[in-house]
């Protein structure tokens, strides 16, 4: 017969040591990040294949736009759009599927049986998604650098692009939160996720800079697309040599920072709201 060991026969060896709330939350947050990491390295073959696919996709788009030639100017401007696009694609999909996948398998409810507040786990999942998206963006960037070097040119660099890059990370996290929240209640939101990614490709200034778009389309993109102001700012800093405070093409540095924060705020509100609805309707584990 199976013998189960419990702590009741191990006096002085509590299963859960007493610790501060902050420490418990940090542990829970790290746990989610670690799970995401295990998932990434567990599927390393798929990761490598996808990294190659994104790199090839970038080169093909430049080739098509360049009418059969890998033009240096297109490689550089395209790279500044393709790296954030790859990032948003992977980050949003990873965060979204970490929820939808758990709902489909029935594991999500089990993860809610915890003394930890759900925002700690949510934050962990988001950071895990960011970490999981970085290798893909890096693969595209390295491919771009190598190709540009092979054409005898070099990719400009400036530490100030870290500001719009960070803004992109914040904005995409907000978008992921919106979609994750929606999927807790509406299980077919997967289609919307895929369409939104396609929309960012077309209208996010990825390959066609916003200043080359009709004013209304550019304004709409700057207003709602999480990567648009960041890409525009990066191009200004790296290709036009402008400072962060001297951005002119879009709506300035203020908007580069405010827009992702607003999307993040909306994401938090949407997720919180829909999580509550899911708990009222019982859709947390229903697919």
């Amino acid at each position: 017969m199976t013998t189960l060991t419990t702590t009741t026969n191990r006096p002085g060896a509590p299963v859960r040591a007493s610790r501060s709330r902050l420490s418990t939350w940090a542990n829970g947050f790290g746990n989610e990040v670690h799970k995401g990491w295990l998932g990434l390295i567990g599927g390393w073959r798929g990761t490598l294949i996808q990294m190659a696919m994104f790199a090839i996709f970038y080169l093909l788009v430049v080739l098509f736009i360049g009418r059969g030639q890998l033009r240096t100017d297109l490689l550089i401007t395209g790279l500044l759009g393709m790296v954030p696009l790859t990032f948003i694609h992977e980050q949003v999909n990873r965060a979204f599927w970490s929820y939808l996948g758990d709902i489909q398998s029935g594991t999500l409810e089990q993860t809610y049986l915890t003394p930890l507040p759900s925002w700690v786990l949510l934050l962990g999942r988001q950071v895990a998604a960011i970490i999981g998206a970085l290798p893909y963006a890096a693969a595209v960037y390295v491919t771009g650098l190598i190709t540009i070097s092979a054409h005898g040119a070099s990719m400009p660099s400036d530490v100030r692009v870290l500001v719009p890059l960070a803004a992109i990370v914040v904005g995409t996290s907000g978008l992921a939160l919106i979609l994750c929240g929606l999927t807790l209640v509406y299980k077919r939101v997967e289609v919307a996720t895929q369409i939104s990614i396609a929309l960012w490709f077309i209208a996010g200034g990825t390959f066609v800079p916003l200043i080359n778009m009709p004013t209304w389309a550019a304004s709409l993109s700057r207003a709602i697309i999480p990567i648009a102001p960041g890409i525009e700012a990066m191009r200004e800093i790296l290709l036009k040599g402008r400072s962060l405070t001297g951005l002119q093409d879009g709506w300035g540095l203020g908007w580069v920072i405010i827009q992702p924060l607003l999307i993040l705020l909306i994401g938090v509100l949407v997720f919180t709201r829909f999580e509550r609805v899911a708990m009222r309707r019982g859709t947390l584990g229903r697919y």
Partner: protein
Amino acid sequence: MARTDVVGDIERSGRPAEVPAIEISGLTKVYGASETKAVDNVSLSVPPGTVFGFLGPNGAGKTTTIKILAGLLSATSGQVRLNGLDVARQRAAAMEQFGAVLEGSRNTYWTLSAMQNLVYFGRLQGMRTSEARSRAEELLRDLDLWDRRDEKVGGYSRGMQQKVAVAASLIADPPIVLLDEPTIGLDVEATRTVKDWIRTLSKDRGKTILLTTHQMDVVEELCDRVAVIRRGQVVTDLPTDQLLARSRQRDKYEIRIDGTGDGLVLPEGFTAVSGEETTLISGRLEDPQDLYPVVDRLREYGAVIEWMAQVQPDLEDVFLDLIREPAR
């Protein structure tokens, strides 16, 4: 003060004996705008150390009650307390009181190994990695999974996956364990193992176990007390032996007759199951003397009685009676 300290105080101070491990008071759940009550004013009290069978047919409100109990669903009204802690208002502390294996779900990550799963769910319960590892090792050794601890759970047999799910629910050694259909899909040997665990956890370790299953033999064998829910309402809540004894006040009789029984009009309360050559007639009688009219009717029909017996009703008979009776 840290949440773990709050719970620690409760555990250290010694819970008064009268505080139930699980207490459900006036629980009602109405989904959406519909007027249908999935759960209708349910009240239950489960003393510590009890194996409590919570039974009901599909759609009776069993899963809804369990999900509210687990804090996965909000109640329309009423209250659920685990070791005196309100699940809705003291969620964090209440969650530390129990572990669960939920029905119809994987419960664990199939892309992770058994050890990775247990460490993950341990940390999810607020344990440090080292604490979770140490506890996981104990559980995996106890459950004969230690040698395969680094294999992905997706590659395990159904029984082994269920073992990992049970281990995950026990990782933080909670005083209350909720097992929703823990033996579903398991073979005879795995079912026996799960039943052994339940018995060990309850009798040797003093844990409170809320068990739901459609396998009445499991309930009859393990449960100290049984509640049956039907159409959102609890129709009975009694110690298992009392429930069986009450039912045995009316004995069940089985009579096998020759032939298919075509045209036979059965006495009230009797049913017939026809085979190719024989028919089994069964029914309940409060007084054995009432058997005479039944036999007379069979004689008038011209049936040849092959065999007749008084049968002790088992829990399955009791359960079927309860879910067929009008709601009280």
